[in-house]
């Protein structure tokens, strides 16, 4: 990597991080300074990211294939081993970094307006800077360890921002739930990382042939078996655990809808456009491990299956939600399922294309939802909206663009092309057609629930309580317009006629080939998806668009039990609460009890036993063993007293005894001599 590029690549994540570090020291009142520091740093980082993208595009290839520039540096030396971290610039990371920094910048600006009245405005920008820096770290990392480090920091930023309105217990609980649920997946990722380290001896992705994603390491991992599977697949599945947690894949999706407790710009940036896509990005990054044993490896089967299931499952739940942001949240889960499906069937290009397109239109939808919420005074229930297209024209227009893109409306909208690419890839998958049909069903539901949402929010009569719905200020609508433009423009590099992005990813020179649009394979899928979209929107309009909407959803009236089950998110949360959360807490209490009563009890018992023993031995000493001794002592003392009285200290007495003694002695001597 050339020096200037190294510096540029280092600066991209570092600048927002530094800005975050600086603003952490600011006082609550220094709002302007905090925002300008973070936004300024982000703007520079964004400019540099585009420079890097340009660099990756025009870089002299010399040979065919993907050009990767990396820069590794040592972090730790232990034993005789050096652990390196590094940064990597390739088409995958360059495109992702440009998207992340651009969407972040727009949302930072939007936050100026949205968070204007918040007491902790200063801190909000600190957290945003932390997030952006960490996320760009995930994107540009050339080491699974550095990825993991940044990954956890992204999780921290997400935790802090979901719980930003910490005085709300729901927000605090949602933040905790997000961190802990993703940590379940992260434990898998962590173990996968150690296993990868053990198997390949390095955590660097690319290192002149010695990296863990390069031929030597992959070949060795594919050969070793573990429980009937190739080691590469075991490691890949463990890494996928982490990806599934971050990207809200079933069964770890439960945190993402709750994360909507955070401020809307956060939902847009972190829980729709960028962080939740990190899981998809990670799988795309370590894709060579997934394919080490071939394009239909066991690990990829799992990815495809879980992706397709999640896409359909979340789309179903989205149909019966009434919170404008939760609908979008389930739609995000569903779309991430699409991306995982694309990866599973082997198309990194389609997955990444959908990731980028989705980032723009989903950020747009969330910011639009934020604008709506802002305009009708913090109301989020779509049953209390309606008729807003008149009051909020800019929001309405841009939201429509986002909605059509998400629904996959043909030709003009980026979502159409990217979703088509996924359907196409799923259709060509030789293993099974089930994921394809699940994706088709999910696509239909997407069009349906988005039409439902549009009907509830923008059409009909206004049903809300807040007086005077109003359009949002320019600082909020301009990002909407820019994102809407991006949602449209992203179509350009995405069509089969000029598949610029996919070719760029694959390291090929893109060529314009209009004939590709008439290819029967493409046409077949395109017409299918066209039909689905029209059917979904049409049915949605039929059910929701032609009548005055009230508190009871027409679907609820038609099929109450089904609607109730969907509205309750198919009871997954309740299931986890009963089977995991409460038992874990219970085990904690049991352990605490065991500790206090049993283990500490044993110690107490030992203490009591020693007291008892000492009391007994005391008694024995006094009354048993010492008894004879004591009594003889007493007797001795008594007699001693008698004897002692002889020696009372009176001289007369002594003399008397002495006289008697002498007399006696003389008598004795006399008797002896006689």
């Amino acid at each position, binding site marked *: 990597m050339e020096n200037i590029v190294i510096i540029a690549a280092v600066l991209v994540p570092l600048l927002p991080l530094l800005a975050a570090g600086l603003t952490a020291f600011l006082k609550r009142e220094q709002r302007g300074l905090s925002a300008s520091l973070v936004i300024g740093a982000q703007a520079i980082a964004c400019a540099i990211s585009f420079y890097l993208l340009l660099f990756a595009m025009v870089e002299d290839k010399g040979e065919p294939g993907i050009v990767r520039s990396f820069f590794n540096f040592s972090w*730790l*030396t232990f034993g005789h081993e050096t652990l390196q971290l590094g940064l990597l610039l390739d088409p995958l990371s360059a495109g992702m970094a440009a998207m992340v920094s651009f969407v972040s910048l727009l949302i930072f600006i939007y936050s100026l307006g949205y968070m204007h009245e918040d007491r902790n405005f200063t801190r909000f920008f600190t957290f945003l800077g932390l997030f952006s820096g960490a996320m760009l770290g995930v994107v540009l990392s050339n080491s699974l360890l550095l990825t993991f480090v940044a990954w956890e920091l992204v999780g921290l930023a997400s935790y802090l921002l979901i719980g930003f309105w910490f005085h709300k*217990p729901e*927000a605090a609980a949602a933040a905790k739930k997000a961190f802990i649920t993703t*940590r379940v997946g992260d434990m898998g990722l962590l173990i996968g990382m150690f296993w990868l380290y053990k198997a390949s001896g390095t955590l660097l992705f690319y290192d002149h042939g010695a990296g863990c994603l390069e031929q030597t390491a992959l070949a060795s991992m594919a050969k070793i078996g573990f429980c009937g599977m190739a080691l590469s697949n075991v490691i890949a599945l463990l890494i996928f655990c982490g990806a599934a947690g971050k990207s809200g894949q079933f069964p770890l999706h439960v945190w993402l809808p709750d994360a909507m407790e955070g401020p809307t710009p956060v939902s847009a940036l972190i829980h729709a456009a960028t962080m939740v896509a990190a899981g998809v990005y990670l799988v795309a990054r370590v894709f060579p491990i997934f394919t080490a044993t071939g394009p239909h490896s066991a690990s990829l089967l799992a990815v495809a299956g879980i992706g397709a299931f999640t896409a359909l499952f979340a789309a179903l739940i989205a149909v019966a939600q009434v919170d404008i942001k939760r609908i979008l949240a389930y739609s995000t889960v569903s779309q991430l399922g699409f991306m995982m499906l694309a990866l599973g069937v082997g198309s990194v290009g389609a997955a990444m294309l959908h990731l980028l397109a989705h980032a723009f239109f989903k950020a747009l939808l969330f910011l639009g939802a934020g604008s709506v919420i802002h305009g009708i005074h913090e109301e989020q229930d779509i049953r209390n909206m309606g008729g807003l297209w008149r009051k909020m024209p800019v929001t309405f227009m841009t939201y429509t663009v986002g909605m059509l893109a998400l629904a996959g409306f043909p030709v003009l909208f980026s979502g159409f092309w990217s979703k088509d690419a996924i359907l196409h890839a799923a259709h060509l998958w030789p293993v099974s057609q089930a994921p394809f049909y699940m994706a088709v069903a999910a696509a239909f539901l997407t069009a349906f629930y988005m039409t439902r949402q549009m009907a509830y929010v923008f059409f009909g009569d206004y049903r809300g309580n807040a007086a005077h719905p109003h359009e949002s200020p320019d600082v909020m609508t301009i990002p909407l317009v820019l994102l809407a433009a991006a949602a449209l423009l992203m179509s350009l590099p995405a069509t089969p006629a000029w598949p610029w992005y996919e070719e760029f990813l694959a390291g090929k020179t893109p060529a314009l080939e209009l004939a590709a649009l008439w290819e029967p394979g493409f046409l077949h899928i395109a017409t299918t998806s066209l039909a689905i979209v029209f059917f979904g929107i049409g049915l949605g309009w039929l059910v929701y668009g032609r009548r005055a909407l009230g508190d009871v959803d027409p679907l609820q009236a038609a099929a109450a039990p089904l609607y109730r089950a969907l509205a309750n998110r198919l009871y997954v949360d309740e299931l986890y609460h009963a089977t995991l959360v409460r038992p874990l807490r219970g085990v904690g209490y049991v352990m605490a009890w065991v500790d206090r009563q049993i283990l500490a009890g044993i110690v107490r018992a030992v*203490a009591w036993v020693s007291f008892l023993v000492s009391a007994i031995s005391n008694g024995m000493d006094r009354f048993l063993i010492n008894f004879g001794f004591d009594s003889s002592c007493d007797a001795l003392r008594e007699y001693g007293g008698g004897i002692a009285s002889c020696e009372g200290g009176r001289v007369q007495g002594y003399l008397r005894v002495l006289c008697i003694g002498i007399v006696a002695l003389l008598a004795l001597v006399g008797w002896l001599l006689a």
Partner: protein
Amino acid sequence: MSNSLTILTFLPLLGALLVVLIPARKTVLLRAVGIVITLAALAFALGLAFQYDRAAGGLQYLEQRAWIPSLHIEYYLAADGLSLLLLVLAALVTPFALFALGDRSTKLGVGLILALETTLFGTFTALNFIHWFLYYELSLVPAFLLIRMGGSAKATAAATQFFIYTLFAGFAMLLGFLAIHQATGTFNLSELAGLAHKAKLGHALSAAFPGLPWINLLVFGGIFAGLAVKVPVVPFHTWLPDAYAEAPAPVSMLLTGLLSKMGVYGFLRLLIPLFPGLMQHLQLPLFGFALVTIIYSALAALGQKDLKRIVAYSSINHLGYCLLGLFAVTATLHGPVNDRAAAMNGVLLQIFNHGLTAAALFCFIGFIERRSGGLRGLNDFGGLRDAAPVLAGLMGIALFSSLGLPGLNGFAGEFLIFKGAFALAPLPSALAAIGLFVTAVFLLTLIERVFTGPLDAGWLTFPDLTVGERFTVAPAIALMFVLGICPQILIALFNQTVLHLLP
């Protein structure tokens, strides 16, 4: 022959004597003397660490004098990377605790803390068993009296329990070493390690006690029990939560930051060098101890309602990872040297980082207690972040450091332990990851209950950290970042020593 280690060891004791001479009412002066002396000791310890020849490694600053030759007791001091790491930690945490003691400094408190520092320095440098044991056991006296300063009847009971429990364990260890002395005629730890290295120690023991076929296991068991109580290893831990919870917070800082490290140090200095073969043989039960310690203590922490007890159990959990790393190293005597060095380096990092972080956490809990009039229940608060944002932010950093967040100090040690241990013993390491998960659950629950939610009406005027308190914790927080981003600072100090220490 230099005298630097002797000077360092007795510097705090000198301070304690000075404190004895100062009238009790001059608390400011007492505190100043304590702080100056401990900071001087810190500078001295840092100086030794900087001057230490890292490339050579091994024992340096040697002092060896005859003491009681007839009993083979020498005055034998030296320091390697491991000793220096712990000297620096002790020298760092002691002034931290004195600062945290703040205006509650008393003559007795300052004097005892200084005396305790001397026993710690002595423990971490003495290399003749009797010499070492003297400091090891003497440390109990100031610790006992300091815990009693908690004042309540419970504190007295906890102190007594702590004293008797650890003293008793110490006797088990002493008996073990007397048997070793009987067999080998030396108390010199370096010589004993040399004998063990040549596999002569076991034979010597068997030969000396022909009637006792289990003598090796017996001696090992005695020493293990002595250290296990100190670390502590579950189920020998029951003295710990009571002691940590009932002692005044600055004392808990010393207990968790330093005294618990004596146990791990003992493992590294006494047990592993003397019984590597036996420990490899016993790897299954040892891994069992490590895993039970890690998982059981994490789950028990989840069930606690008292902030101090949560951090106390979390301390047991963190030291459990040290055990995992150590036992992974002893289980694979012929394993790849880099993996073993990784685990061992990780253990040493973890010792230091846990000492720093746990001390900081107890310091914060002390700050909370002072404001709440002694309340420290998990459910006694709510929304404190609103009233005391700086306290919430800084304590949050310490909590995430404890949780092992990358970028803060806790991560690097755990990463290296798991890196090494997973390569050496995959199954126990994978199971131990459960502990990492549960740790996140109880620490985030702590944050949720104490700092978030609506501000409890009783705490509307809960004061934020004072300037003095901010300066007290600032160095610790700064170190968490520095050591998180650049753990090589510490590893460079002891990597060579680790290679020497690997059995």
